[in-house]
């Protein structure tokens, strides 16, 4: 039998499996009411459409695994909200069965990034395309206080030369610098840039997050409070260093 004309020789492989790490938003579900979820999701997406549109997401069903859930409808609803479900973790075996019927991979509960290689391509495939333009995004500079209830989203770095009040939310795809008291929430590397840092001259934040790894005010060490700090990621661990 003739072999394929463009046959590959043994020393030039057609593919290789590699373990890759990628950060995607995980949707932790607390309710099984699809209407409520869809409504709240739409509201969330409205607040930061650039961040969520066509973004892949992983459903975490741990909190509702005891409950009845129409996964088929839910996945439809989420896909219709312009996000893409690329996996499911946690949940009951019945829910896993449904997920398999929907061709959605079921992932290990502990760590998403150690998902089996066979599932890896799917995740990579539907990841947002935006990160490609990351380096080109210019910095955003804000020279007035960010007040409670205000939200600021920056495509590149975000530099604020005033205070950020409690109840305010600042987000950047790159680094965040706050030359004033940081009392609100600060989220750097929101599209998954693990190299991003947060710098502030007075840390009193409600929440800080780098590429989805976050810490709330209650868990801040007292030695880091009210002093200038740098916050960065080291092997998925959030490090807060006095500077």
């Amino acid at each position, binding site marked *: 039998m003739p072999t394929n004309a463009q046959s590959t020789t043994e020393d030039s492989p057609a593919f290789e499996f590699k373990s890759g790490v990628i950060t995607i938003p995980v949707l932790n579900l607390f309710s099984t009411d699809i209407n409520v979820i869809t409504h709240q999701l739409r509201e969330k997406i409205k607040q930061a459409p650039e961040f969520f549109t066509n973004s892949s997401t992983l459903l975490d069903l741990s909190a509702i695994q005891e409950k009845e859930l129409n996964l088929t409808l839910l996945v439809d609803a989420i896909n219709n909200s312009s996000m893409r479900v690329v996996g499911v973790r946690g949940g009951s075996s019945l829910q896993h069965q449904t997920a398999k019927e929907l061709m959605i991979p079921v992932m290990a509960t502990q760590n998403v990034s150690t998902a089996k290689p066979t599932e890896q391509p799917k995740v990579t495939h539907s990841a947002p395309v935006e990160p490609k333009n990351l380096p080109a995004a210019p910095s955003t500079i804000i020279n007035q206080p*960010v*007040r*409670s209830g205000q939200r600021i989203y920056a495509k590149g770095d975000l530099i604020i030369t005033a205070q950020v009040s*409690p*109840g305010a939310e600042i987000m950047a795809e790159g680094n965040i610098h706050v030359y004033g*008291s940081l*009392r609100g929430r600060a989220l750097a590397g929101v599209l998954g840039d693990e190299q991003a840092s947060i710098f502030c001259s007075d840390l009193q934040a409600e929440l800080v997050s780098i590429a989805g790894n976050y810490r709330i005010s209650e868990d801040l060490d007292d030695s880091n409070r009210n002093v200038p700090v740098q916050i960065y990621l080291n092997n998925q661990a959030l490090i807060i260093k006095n500077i």
Partner: protein
Amino acid sequence: MARIIVVTSGKGGVGKTTTSAAIAMGLAKKGHKTAVIDFDVGLRNLDLILGCERRVVYDFVNVINEEATLNQALIKDKRCSQLYILPASQTRDKDALTQEGVGKVLDELAKTFKYIVCDSPAGIERGANLAMYFADDAFVVTNPEVSSVRDSDRMLGILSSKSRRAEQGDEPIKEYLLLSRYDPKRVKLGAMLSVEDVQDILSLHLLGVIPESQSVLSASNAGEPVILDSDSDAGQAYSDVVDRYLGEDKPHRFIDEDKKGLFKRLFGS
């Protein structure tokens, strides 16, 4: 050019209407023709504080709906000929206010008045938004407690993003802090935020501190703006606020507990 001042806070019960009445009267007493508008449609109060509740014929909503002219609705104060009051409607709700209608009324007032004081309702909904939308200056009334401070902070965010000046890219609204119901004794005990605490959170130009005072309640009940009671500490504090707003440099008072001598302590003040 008329200046439109909004008296706002976010939170209710902090002293917006008391402040509106006091500074409007204060500005008028200084000889500036001043109008004060009650934006709290459905919860009309300003007319009571100014003691003109029995003279209300037409109101703000009537003027917006062109059921009455501005001159018909404006009530001239009996104590000061430079002060006019435009009362709110008690039988309607905030939906009766439209941006276009409010803009038209303010434009017309601006032709003859020097200062227009807008008494904002509490909250961050329609009434409050329209009260601040056209403003040039904002008096943010805050009580020295955390929830009031946070609500003021929220209001400041709205002032800097949703006003006409913000939307048209003009010079932003000038924001002033007015700390009311301040009690130095309780601050000393640590039961109340201090001026510094509030300033640290809001970082805003402090226009004045109004001490907690019995005279405010009695003035409200009597329908006399507290600023007319020149013997009371609150009245003096509001006079200072008006002077500072008009550019006078006056040192802040009522921030520290006054040390009472033995006689005063025995016989009261």
